[in-house]
C-alpha cells in the first residue's frame, strides 16, 4: 500500500503532481507513522546525512550505493534489490527522496530508481534546504530498517537513458545542456569550485540548447511554477512536450534534475538522460564538439 498523495494546490498544475511532496506533507506523514513510506536522503556530501537528517530517513549515496564500484555503470538488478531491501523498501513502497544542492542527487537517485521500474518514488520539493529553512527537526539517530523483499529486476536503460552512440545519432534533434554557460562555451572544463573531473576538450554537443539546471529552481530551491517552466523550455527554447529530448551535464546528476522537470513537471513524453555526459563526450576521440556561447 502506498502513502497518500500530497494534494498541495501548488503542485496541481504540474503534469505529474504525484511526484512531489511538500515539507508539511512529509512532516504530517512522519507524525502519523504512515506505513510503507521510506524517506531517503541522497546528497553530494557523503557525510551530510550523518551530520543530521530528517527523523526516520535513511541514507542513499549515489556513489557508494547506486554506482557499480568497478565499471562506470549503475548497479545491476541484484545490487539494486539489495540496496532497496536493506532499507526496508519493497516494490510497492512509497519512497520520498530529498537532498542537498536543490535535490540534484535526489533527482539522480529518483532517475536511477526509475531505470529499475520503481513505481512510487517522489521528491521533497525544495529538498533538504527547505526542511532546514523551516526550522524542522534534524537528528543524528540512524533508524534500523526491517529488511524487505525486493524483486531482482533487470534495469531498463532503453526509455530514459542515453548512451554516447545515442547522443551521436541525436545531433540535430532536441538536446539540452544543463551545465553553466562557461562549461557550455568551453571556457571551463569543470564547474567552478568542483573537482576537476578530467575532460580534455571543452564545449558542448553541436546543436544542444543551453539551459543551466538552476533556472528550473526558484530562489528557495523549490521548483518554479509550471508557467515559469514553460516560459523557459517551451517558449524560450522552443521545445515541445512531444519532442524526443536528450539532456546531459557533466556526469548526469544536474541533468537528472532537468530530466525530472521535463518529464514529471512539464509532461514531456520522451526525455533521456545521457549520464556519460561531458566527462565522456569531452574525452571521446573524433566526436563533434562546438565551442562558444549559444547562438
Amino acid at each position, binding site marked *: 500500500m502506498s502513502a497518500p498523495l500530497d494534494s498541495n494546490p501548488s503542485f496541481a498544475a504540474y503534469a505529474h503532481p504525484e511526484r512531489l511532496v511538500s515539507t508539511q506533507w512529509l512532516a504530517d506523514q512522519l507524525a502519523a507513522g504512515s506505513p510503507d513510506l521510506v524517506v531517503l536522503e541522497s546528497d*553530494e*556530501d*557523503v*557525510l*551530510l546525512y*550523518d*551530520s543530521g537528517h530528517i527523523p526516520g530517513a535513511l541514507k542513499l549515496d549515489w*556513489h*557508494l550505493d547506486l554506482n557499480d564500484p568497478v565499471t562506470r555503470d549503475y548497479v545491476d538488478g541484484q545490487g539494486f534489490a539489495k540496496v532497496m531491501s536493506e532499507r526496508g523498501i519493497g516494490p510497492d513502497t512509497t519512497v520520498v527522496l530529498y537532498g*542537498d544542492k536543490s535535490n540534484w542527487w535526489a533527482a539522480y537517485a529518483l532517475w536511477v530508481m526509475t531505470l529499475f521500474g520503481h513505481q512510487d518514488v517522489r521528491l521533497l520539493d525544495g529538498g533538504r534546504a527547505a526542511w532546514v529553512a523551516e526550522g524542522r527537526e534534524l537528528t543524528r539517530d540512524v533508524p534500523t530498517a526491517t529488511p524487505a523483499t525486493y524483486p531482482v529486476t533487470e534495469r531498463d536503460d532503453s526509455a530514459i537513458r542515453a548512451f554516447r552512440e545515442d547522443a551521436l545519432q541525436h545531433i540535430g534533434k532536441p538536446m539540452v545542456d544543463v551545465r553553466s554557460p562557461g562549461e557550455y562555451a568551453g571556457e571551463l572544463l569543470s564547474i*567552478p*569550485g*568542483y*573537482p*576537476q*573531473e578530467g575532460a580534455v576538450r571543452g564545449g558542448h554537443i553541436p546543436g544542444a540548447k543551453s539551459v543551466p539546471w538552476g533556472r528550473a529552481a526558484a530562489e528557495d530551491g523549490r521548483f518554479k511554477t509550471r508557467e515559469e517552466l514553460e516560459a523557459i523550455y517551451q517558449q524560450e527554447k522552443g521545445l515541445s512536450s512531444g519532442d524526443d529530448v536528450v539532456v546531459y551535464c557533466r556526469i548526469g546528476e544536474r541533468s537528472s534534475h532537468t530530466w525530472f522537470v521535463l518529464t514529471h513537471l512539464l509532461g514531456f513524453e520522451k526525455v533521456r538522460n545521457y549520464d556519460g555526459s561531458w566527462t565522456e563526450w569531452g574525452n571521446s576521440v573524433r566526436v563533434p564538439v562546438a565551442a562558444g556561447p549559444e547562438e
Partner: protein
Amino acid sequence: MTDALPDALTELVDDFNELAAQDRLQLLLELSDELPELPDRYEGHLDELERVDECQTPLFLAVEVEPAGDPHGTVRLFFNAPPESPTTRGFAGILHTGLDGQTVDTVLAVPDDIPFKFGLGEAVSPLRLRGMVAMLGRIKRQLRDQVLT
C-alpha cells in the same frame, strides 16, 4: 610507510584503519564537528584566505609560520567551511589534527598521497578524496612561499 609522518598524523592513520568502513565516516564526522572556528582576526576577512577550488564546497585556508618566515618554525593552520559541508570540514579536521603545531620541515615532508592512507576510499569514494589532496598541496605551497621569501 609512515616513518616520516608527525605522530599526530600517524595516530590518525592508525585510528581510521582500525575501524570498519562505516565507522570511519563517524570518525570523519567527529573531526568535522571539532574543526576549530576561525580566530577573530580572520572573521569577516575570508577574502584574505586562500580558496581551495578543488573541494566540492568552498573551503578557505590560511597558513601561518611562527616565527614568520622561519624555515624551521611552527605551522599554524586555519580553515573555514560551512556545516553543510561536513566531508570538507572532516578533511580539514584531519589536516588540522595531524599538522597544526608541527614544524615547517615536518609538514613539507608529508607525502602528497597521504589522503589515500586513511582507508577512506571505500567510505567516501576516491573521487571525493581529491579535495584533501588539493588542501595539502595548498598548505605546502604556501609554506614554501612563506619561508623562501
